[in-house]
């Protein structure tokens, strides 16, 4: 298990290789990369800055990875979240989940992303032609996270 909060870019291929290297019991690795987009809610976005709560961030990410591990039979999990200033096209977050079977890998990867979106203390501030603005939490993210408790 690997959880990192860092300013630097990450390398999806290297992270997934690190999970699979030397293992012959992994049948499935589901992964996700979130990227900074050039527009949001109708405005152009020239850049964004990610703020976080050092200490709590790592604790919150570890807690939601532990929840995923208790729900599904997982062999390994990597979560990397960037902070600081990012440009459109830059990667923001990586979640990679290894399991024997694909259903568990997919479910756990999506669960971790949904939980991260509502429970890990990161905040985005966007630079737009109209000035800077803090991104508001999305109702759709709350709904996505709630799916996992309803079922």
């Amino acid at each position, binding site marked *: 298990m690997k959880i990192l909060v860092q300013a630097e870019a990450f390398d999806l291929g290297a992270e997934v290789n690190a999970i699979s290297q030397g293992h012959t019991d992994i049948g499935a690795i589901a992964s996700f990369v979130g990227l900074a987009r050039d527009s949001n809610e109708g405005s152009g976005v020239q850049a964004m800055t990610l703020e976080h709560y050092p200490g709590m961030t790592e604790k*919150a990410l570890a807690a939601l990875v532990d929840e995923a591990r208790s729900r599904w039979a997982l062999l390994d999990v990597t979560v990397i979240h960037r902070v600081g200033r990012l440009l459109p096209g830059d990667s923001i977050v990586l979640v990679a989940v290894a399991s024997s079977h694909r259903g568990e890998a997919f479910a756990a990867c999506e669960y971790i992303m949904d939980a991260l979106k509502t429970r890990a203390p990161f*905040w*985005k501030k966007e630079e737009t032609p109209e000035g800077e603005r*803090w991104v508001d939490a999305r109702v759709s993210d709350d709904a996505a996270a709630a799916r996992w408790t309803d079922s």
Partner: protein
Amino acid sequence: MNLRVLYFARLREHFGLAEENVDFAGATAADLVAQLQARGGVWAEELAAGRAFRVAVNQDIVTLDAILPDHAEVAIFPPVTGG
């Protein structure tokens, strides 16, 4: 009792403050919020009933009825928007 109180993102900017020590005579997170609101101005505005904010105590998100232990690290911040 004494609390270390942290603010993040929009609240940090509006309060013009990332962190402070607060003398606290109440019991719950709601009491602390009421005490800060009583400062008026941006404090009253950002912490008004109906405004969305979250409270964490010692780095776990809590509900407003949570009891605050002495020397707790309390953080108040907007709903998160990472990922």
